[in-house]
């Protein structure tokens, strides 16, 4: 019996103690008519060796060579130590640290994580994780509505330059509560929010969401946007890529208005910090905020305290916000979070340190600039935004994009993220990204493969031979 340690003899003696004849008797309170006939779609059990064969075959089948896709999930190098430690049984197989004394390892690590995230974002405090970047944004919207006592509108301004999946998730989670997410359009030349188009009298709104870098990889004018929101008594919710913060002004410092500098809530996707791509999950959402709002924050928070002897120790704190205490009045329903990913991210940040993070960000930035200049050289491919960017850029193709993507995939290359589904106006547009994991050869090789592919597709598309130039 897989994973069940009982011997026949033990079962017999246990049944005797209980005073029943058979294990079946233990189910005697379940009405007979509810008992199931057995499972029909679950195959017979396999040994570890047998399932190993299946999984290896499937994994091999999906292996590709190179990936230039980003769009919220980024391929970064993860030091070997990160996951070798993260998957140690004591981290991997522990529960939520409710029994603090038996969980000081996880708790201290989480306290260190909170410190790192607060410092990276330049915010006061951090929670211990939410599910992912998208749901973190939804929670941030809910939190802003609770926190902004000056606004009654439940109206949140949501630029279209925010990751479209995040916007959808935020809508799906908050709309039941009557919260309205109002779109702000972007400037088609820069691919960023047009500061000049912001209304002088926007009416009561609860918060403005500011992405940095935005979904297109472009850099928003975060200072002006922050000041504008604060001037209208709205909160600022920053959605940021934590890796980019090694180079970019942190949300806690946004704004030129010295009275109320900085975002009020910062959230985002933690994946770039040591988490493998893994088809999109598990990742982790992070959330930081100003100290004054900490009691409105969802998710677990770890505090440092002392034990009976005055020795420092760590425990879950402000639990009165959470569902297991406050139930229907909790700040969120979240219970299980993404602890193990935070464990990995913490170890990642400790290993790469401030210089490593900075270099990784800078190399990703640099490589993307190289990739852009290579693609700029190709026929039938145009860059469409002129703003400064971090490590993503958008290109428009003359040929049908799905053919291009399919053809590159067949050559072992994930070419990028297509934007058409979410931005109908960006038909045939591909967003590419080159992190520090791409060498110059990779990038130039990609451009070359793309050029060949385009020529081939072009030839196939117009059977008439193109004239000699």
């Amino acid at each position, binding site marked *: 019996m897989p994973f069940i340690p009982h011997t026949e003899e033990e079962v017999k003696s246990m049944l005797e103690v209980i005073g029943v004849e058979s294990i079946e008797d233990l189910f005697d309170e379940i009405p007979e008519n509810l008992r199931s006939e057995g499972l029909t779609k679950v195959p017979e059990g396999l040994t570890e060796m047998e399932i190993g064969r299946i999984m290896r075959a499937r994994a091999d089948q999906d292996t590709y060579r190179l990936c230039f896709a980003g769009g919220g999930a980024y391929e970064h190098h993860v030091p070997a*130590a990160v996951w070798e430690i993260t998957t*140690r049984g004591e981290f991997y197989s522990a529960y939520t640290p409710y029994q603090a004394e038996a969980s000081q390892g996880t708790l201290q690590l989480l306290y260190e994580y909170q410190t790192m995230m607060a410092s990276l974002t330049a915010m006061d405090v951090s929670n211990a994780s939410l599910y992912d970047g998208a749901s973190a944004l939804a929670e941030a919207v809910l939190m802003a509505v609770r926190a902004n006592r000056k606004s009654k509108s439940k109206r949140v301004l949501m630029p279209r330059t925010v990751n479209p999946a995040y916007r959808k998730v935020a809508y799906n989670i908050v709309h039941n509560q009557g919260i309205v997410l109002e779109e702000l359009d972007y400037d088609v030349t820069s691919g960023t929010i047009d500061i000049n188009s912001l209304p002088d009298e926007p009416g009561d709104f609860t918060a403005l969401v500011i992405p940095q870098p935005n979904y297109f990889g472009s850099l928003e004018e975060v200072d002006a946007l922050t000041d504008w929101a604060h001037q209208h008594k709205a909160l600022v919710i920053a959605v940021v890529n934590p890796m980019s913060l090694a*180079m970019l002004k942190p949300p806690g410092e946004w704004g030129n208005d010295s009275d109320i500098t900085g975002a009020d809530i910062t959230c985002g996707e933690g994946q770039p910090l040591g988490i493998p791509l893994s088809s999109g999950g598990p990742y982790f959402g992070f959330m930081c905020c100003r100290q004054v709002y900490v009691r409105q924050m969802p998710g677990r928070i770890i505090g440092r305290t002392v034990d009976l002897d005055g020795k420092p120790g760590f425990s879950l704190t402000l639990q009165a916000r959470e569902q297991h205490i*406050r139930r229907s009045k*909790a700040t969120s329903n979240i219970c299980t979070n993404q602890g193990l990913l935070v464990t990995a991210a913490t170890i990642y940040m400790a290993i790469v340190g401030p210089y490593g993070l900075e270099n990784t960000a800078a190399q990703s930035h640099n490589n993307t600039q190289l990739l852009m200049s290579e693609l700029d050289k190709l026929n039938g491919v145009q860059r469409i935004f002129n703003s*400064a960017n971090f490590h993503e850029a958008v290109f428009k193709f003359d040929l049908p994009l799905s053919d291009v993507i399919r053809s590159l995939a067949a050559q072992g290359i994930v070419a990028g993220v297509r934007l058409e589904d979410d931005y109908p106006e960006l038909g045939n547009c591909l967003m590419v990204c080159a992190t520090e994991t791409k060498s110059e050869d990779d990038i130039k090789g990609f451009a070359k493969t793309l050029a060949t592919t385009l020529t081939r597709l072009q030839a196939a598309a117009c059977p008439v031979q193109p004239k000699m130039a």
Partner: protein
Amino acid sequence: MLVFEQSRTGRVNAAQSAKKDNMVNVIPDNLKRKTRPLLPEISEMQAVRHYTRLSQKNFSIDTHFYPLGSCTMKYNPRACNQLSMLPGLLNRHPATPDSSSQGFLACMYDLQEILKDVTGMYEVSLAPMAGAQGEFAGVAMIRAYHDAQNGGKGDPARTEILVPDAAHGTNPATATMCNFKVKEIPTNSDGDVDIDALKAAVGPQTAGIMLTNPSTLGVFERKIKEIAGIVHDAGGLLYYDGANLNAILGKVKPGDMGFDVIHMNLHKTFSTPHGGGGPGAGPVGVSKRLEPYLPVPMVVENGGEYHVVTEKSRPQSIGRLSAFMGNTGILLRAYIYARMLGSEGMQRVAEYATLNANYMLAVLQKSGFEIAYPNRRATHEFIVTLKKQAKDLGVNTMDFAKRLLDYGFHAPTTYFPLLVPECLLIEPTETETKQELDDFMQAMVAIQKEAESEPEIVKSAPHTLPVRRLDDVKAAKELDLTYKGE
């Protein structure tokens, strides 16, 4: 010592970051970061040593018996970790075209099918990232369903969700998130839902009821069919909190009990790791009438090929709940586990989890401990109440819990469910040996003796852990949430 206290300015891990020369930087000055973040500047070895030593301060399934009721702390097979982290799976970007992802998608599809089978539901979506998000999806679907009634005009009167008082906190919290009012239903003295109270509570305002069966009291709700009838007759839907699915896996299907929607905690029943707090996965299954509302993405099979489908082809869906496909790495682990168990193995899970719980109940009862529902069969868990000890000896449940740590056992769940005073909710799971259970119960008896003869030792426990009992009041009052470099 905190990792920051080991930091020295200027220490660089060269193997983890080679500085390149002449890097292009087009970031405008006003958008640049000016000061370095205070990440620790330590060597790779220091990091390895620090976090290895920290890990050793944890209790975990790999080191300790962990009979945490409602949490199903069973063995997490290492094969699930190893195989889910094969490079082809671990490095797959979520934007990879379906055509290059058939291996991965096959696993997702197969898992959907397996979960349909074990729950007896019509269709399953793997999207939710934990139990609570599964609950959100479920209740949002209930809302979507009512909104679609009356030819699309909706049924706006249905503003209430019923929740038994024994329910997990996520249930009422979720109902609130979906903008429902929560009405609590009391529990009988035998642990079943109070049917009369239920009858009195239902009405045209009832959107649905959230139940878990077996309940968090460790007993099987015998009148489930009657409850289903009452709620359905009133026009409400039934939500199944699948956190306790381990008790009935392969034995009873929630679909057969009359539930309309269910979430599963794969990190419980399907043995994916708890990771010190997460991640989990909370797939949802639904009856036919809720099928259109399932959250996306889902995986469909078409002539031997697998495809991801989204809102586009499922316009009535409550939509996506995560940026990509949810916690797929956890779904892979659950899939691998399910395949190793197989159909026979699944039923055995329920059988042996139940055997272990009933055995413990019997032994502890014989040893003089008071069982909260002594006339009921235990399911995969059961409740001991220490209210006598608290009253007579001044030794309460928390004291017992902390003292158990000294004996090398993780404590059972304490003070939950809220309606049983001084309770310990004990869930041994099927993967523990009789010997381990016996050892635990011996410790319980020993602590009882200590409580009688030298209560101080119990009240001031633990004594052998990295820290003694922590001051939670101070933690909440004098908030210290980040290191500020004292």
